[in-house]
């Protein structure tokens, strides 16, 4: 009987998620293993059955009514301005906040260094995340500085939507 790892590998092979070399090795196994062939047949069948499942699904409300609800929500925002204008105001506020935050973090770090002259201290910066940490072991203090907003569009989406 196929073990679970082999079953998952078979699935990955079907989904094109195996590296070329591993996929070639699996081709050979598949040719000689009737159990793997049967399981592959089932996985393919499930995939084929699901294809096109969403096609033809229609919103069960008249388009005018649906849009009117969305427009009402959009226009409900007080002092509504074009999104790009709002974004620039927000961006300005964020820039100000980032500068003020950086100054405050810098001052705090200087104060901590002055107070603790004794113990070793380390600084770490993570290029990808834009995070910067300062550890003062003697003072048992860690400062973490995060750049904001995030660098890319996708990160902004994730940040706003993901709860867990």
């Amino acid at each position, binding site marked *: 009987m196929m073990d679970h790892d082999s079953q998952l590998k078979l699935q990955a092979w079907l*989904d094109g998620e195996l590296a070329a070399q591993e996929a070639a090795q699996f081709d050979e196994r598949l040719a000689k293993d009737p159990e793997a062939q049967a399981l592959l047949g*089932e996985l393919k069948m499930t995939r084929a059955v699901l294809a096109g*499942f969403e096609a033809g699904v*229609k919103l069960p409300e008249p388009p005018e009514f649906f849009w009117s609800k*969305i427009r009402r929500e959009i226009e409900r925002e007080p002092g509504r301005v074009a999104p*790009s204008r709002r974004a620039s105001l927000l961006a300005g506020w964020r820039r100000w906040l980032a500068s003020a935050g950086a100054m405050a973090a810098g001052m705090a770090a200087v104060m901590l260094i002055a107070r603790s002259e004794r113990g070793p201290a380390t600084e770490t910066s993570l290029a990808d995340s834009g995070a910067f940490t300062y550890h003062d072991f003697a003072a048992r203090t860690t400062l973490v500085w995060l750049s904001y907003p995030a660098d890319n569009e996708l990160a902004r989406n994730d940040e706003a939507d993901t709860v867990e």
Partner: protein
Amino acid sequence: MTGKEYGPENDAALVRAAQRGDTAAFGELVVRHRDKIYARALSMVRNEEEAVDLSQEAWVKGWQRLPQFLGESSFGTWMTRIVINLCLDHLRKQKRQRMESIEAIDEESGGVERQMPVVTVNPTAGLERSELRERIDHALGQLSFEHRTVLVLHEFEQMEYKEIAKTMGCSIGTVMSRLFYARRKMAALLAGLRKEGLR
């Protein structure tokens, strides 16, 4: 419908107009993509009313985030990701409000999918489109939201394992196990439904 007549402009031109505050242009985008966004919400939450509300919420969110849309993906894909995230949040909240589903317990107790006999005959062969849809819908409803979501993201959204793991906040190994279980369970359920239908 939106007060302006739009020709066959591509989405990018409508998005640019909407980003300048043109609600009519945004309305046209809603008209063009509303069914797809609703269909995705319905596949995930399996409740028409909730799917309508979530897709509406997604459109409002889409408007608010238009400045963040840089055209790295198509507008339709971008909107679909918004509704997927909203549905995931909604389902997680629902799950917290009720007991763990039997499916989730099965997954944790380990390996029921490994003992399931392989389905060798297509149990949906010869079915009418509406009947097939009904059976798939019923079978999807038997899966826990985690299994259903992995299946939807992979089969309908064509996401890779890595991307699903990121969206769901779990490991690639978990995605692979859930997808395998979901597919096998779907096959077994469809085969079971076929037998019931023949009685």
